[in-house]
C-alpha cells in the first residue's frame, strides 16, 4: 500500500497522539482525528477516503460501539476495516465489539508492535 488514510476516534488527546505516533510507521500514512462517534461520522462523510478506522469505546456524545454499528449499516462505509482500542478488556466486551462488525479488538495499554501487526494484516501491507 503506497499510502493510507487512518481515522483515529478517541476522546483522549494523549491516546490520539500515541496512536498517531504508532501509525507514522506506515509510509505516507495520513491521520485524521475525531473526538467521538459523531465527529467520526462527519469525517467519514468528508472528501477523504478512509482506509481504516481505529476507535475507542468509551467516548462522550457517541460511543465506539454505536459508531461501529452505524458504519457497518452504511453501504458506502461498511467495507472499511475497524479496530477497537479500549480499556474494556473483558471477553464479553471483545465478543460484543467483534459481533457488531469490528475486525479487531485491542485492549489498552496498547503495544505499538501489536497495533502495527494488526493493521498490516487488515490492510495486507
Amino acid at each position, binding site marked *: 500500500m503506497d499510502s493510507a488514510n487512518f481515522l483515529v476516534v478517541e476522546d483522549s488527546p494523549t491516546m490520539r497522539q*500515541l496512536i498517531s505516533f504508532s501509525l507514522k510507521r506506515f509510509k505516507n500514512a495520513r491521520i485524521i482525528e475525531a473526538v467521538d462517534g459523531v465527529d467520526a461520522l462527519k469525517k467519514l462523510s468528508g472528501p477523504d477516503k478512509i482506509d481504516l478506522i481505529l476507535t475507542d469505546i468509551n467516548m462522550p456524545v457517541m460511543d465506539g460501539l454505536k459508531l461501529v454499528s452505524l458504519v457497518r449499516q452504511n453501504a458506502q462505509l461498511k467495507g472499511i476495516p475497524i479496530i477497537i482500542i479500549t*480499556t474494556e478488556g473483558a471477553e464479553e466486551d471483545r465478543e460484543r465489539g467483534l459481533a457488531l462488525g469490528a475486525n479487531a479488538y485491542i485492549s489498552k495499554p496498547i503495544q505499538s508492535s501489536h497495533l502495527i501487526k494488526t493493521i498490516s494484516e487488515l490492510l495486507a501491507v
Partner: protein
Amino acid sequence: MSDESKAEKFLEIFNKGKEFTEELLRENQRLRFRVATLDNEQAGLSQEELQHLRHEVAQLAEENLRMQTRFREVEDENKDFANRYIEIEEQNNNLASLYVASYQLHSTLDFREVIQIVQEIIINLVGAESFAILLRDEKTNDLKTIASEGKDAIPGIDKISTRLGDGILGQVARTGESYFVSHEIAGTKVTVENPLAAVPLKIKDHVIGIIVIYKLLQQKDAFTAVDYELFSLLAAHAATAIFSSKLYSQSERKLNTIQSFLDLLTTN
C-alpha cells in the same frame, strides 16, 4: 562306397572335429584370460574409486559438519537479532509512551487540564482502573484527593485525607521514595491505605503530592518495565506541570484582581 573310403571320410570328419574342438579350447582359454584380466582391472579400478569416494565422503562429512556448525551459529545470530528486534520494538513503544506523556503534560497551563492529562496517562498508558491523585497542602501538610477514578472498586479513594508521615501514603510523601507491592499483585489485599503503588510528585526533593494506584485494568496483571519509567516521568514532569499550572492559575487570578483594582482607580 568302400570300407576304405568310409574310413577316410570318417577320419576327415574326426580331424575337423578335433581342430574345431582345439579351436574352441584355445578360444575358451583366451576368453578366460580376458575375463581374468578384466576382473583384475575392474577390481583395481573399484578400489581406487572406492578410495576416492571414501575421501570425498569424508570431505563432504566434514563440510556438512562445518555447515551444521555455521547453521547453528547463524540460527543463534538470528535468534539474537530477533530478540534484539523485539527489545528495540519494546523500547520504541516505551519511548513513544514517555514522549507522548511528557508532551501532553507540558501542553497546557490549565490546572484542570493537567490533572485530566495525568489521569489519561494513568488509565491509558499505565493501565490503571482505580487510582487517586493526592496533593499536599503546604500549610497543613495534609494530603488530600484532588482527582480519582474507580471509587466503586475501592470506596473512599475520592476523599482521602492523610497526614505527612502517616501510613504508606504519608511515608511516600515524607521520604519521596516510591512504593510498590513487593509480592504478587493478584493476591494483594488492597485498601485505601494499602495500595499497589504510590508515587511521589516531586520538584527536586520537595514532594507536592502523590499518585496512588489501587487496581489495574482486568487485562493487566502486573506492572511492566515501562510502567516504572512512566512513574518516574510522572514523578517529575507531572509535578512540575501541576505546580506551574497552579502558579499560573494563581497569577491569572491575581492579575484579574489587580486589573479590576486598576480599572476601579482609573474610573474614579
